[in-house]
């Protein structure tokens, strides 16, 4: 499939940046004329992925979050990468209600929502090196 366009965004890990990240990715995806519901799906999935970087990978410390968005004819691929703590067991981390911070008020639904709002989600993580989340969504247009 031929790529139509792409953008790369690098932000420093901070809770304040999550709104900017999801809005920017959604605005870029709007070039494919998605429905409002599809735009909201993208925003939610990106918010969950970036929040994982901020809260879990970097634990509130500074750190780079790379976001790459590739647009194809009727689908988008979004890659969110961090260089934080990483984790060993991807399957465990992706279970609904799993959280690495059980003493905080966390739903443990981040990966579950990414999977629900996108068509495909792939996660690669290595302890001490970071995590890469690749999400794909096909638009009805």
């Amino acid at each position, binding site marked *: 499939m031929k790529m139509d366009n792409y953008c790369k965004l690098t932000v420093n890990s901070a*809770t304040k940046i999550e709104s900017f990240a*999801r809005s920017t990715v959604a605005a870029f995806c709007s070039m494919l004329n998605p429905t409002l519901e599809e735009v909201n799906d993208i925003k*939610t999935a990106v918010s969950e992925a970036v*929040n994982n970087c901020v809260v879990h990978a970097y634990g509130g410390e500074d750190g780079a979050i790379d976001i790459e968005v590739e647009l194809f004819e009727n689908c988008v691929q979004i890659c969110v990468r961090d260089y934080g703590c990483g984790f060993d067991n991807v399957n465990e981390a992706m279970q609904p209600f799993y959280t690495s911070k059980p003493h*905080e*008020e*966390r*739903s443990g*639904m981040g990966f579950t*929502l990414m999977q629900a709002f996108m068509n495909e989600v792939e996660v690669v993580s290595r302890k001490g090196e970071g995590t890469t989340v690749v999400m794909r969504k096909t638009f009805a247009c």
Partner: protein
Amino acid sequence: MEVQITAERDSLVVRPNGYIDEYTAHDFRRALERAADQYPPTIIIDFEDVDFMDSTGIGTMLARYKVMRDRNIELCVRNVGKQVDKLFRLTGIYSILNLVR
């Protein structure tokens, strides 16, 4: 984030404004705590002015729901927009709170 709390008959209405994510969730949590500390029979969260929420907001609501349940406070939501409604449906949170008009 600005969160209004108003009395409406025997309920307290909590009305957040803007988006609820990691950056703003503590304001949302504090407003729900303040409302629950008044022990009303019902707390209604009015989502009319909320344009986006992610799972951080769900985590906040679940934790506050447990406190309210222990105090016999009923938790309701109203004016839920499409994005938040989908989030509620997919996380199953409608099973523990009531959608009111």
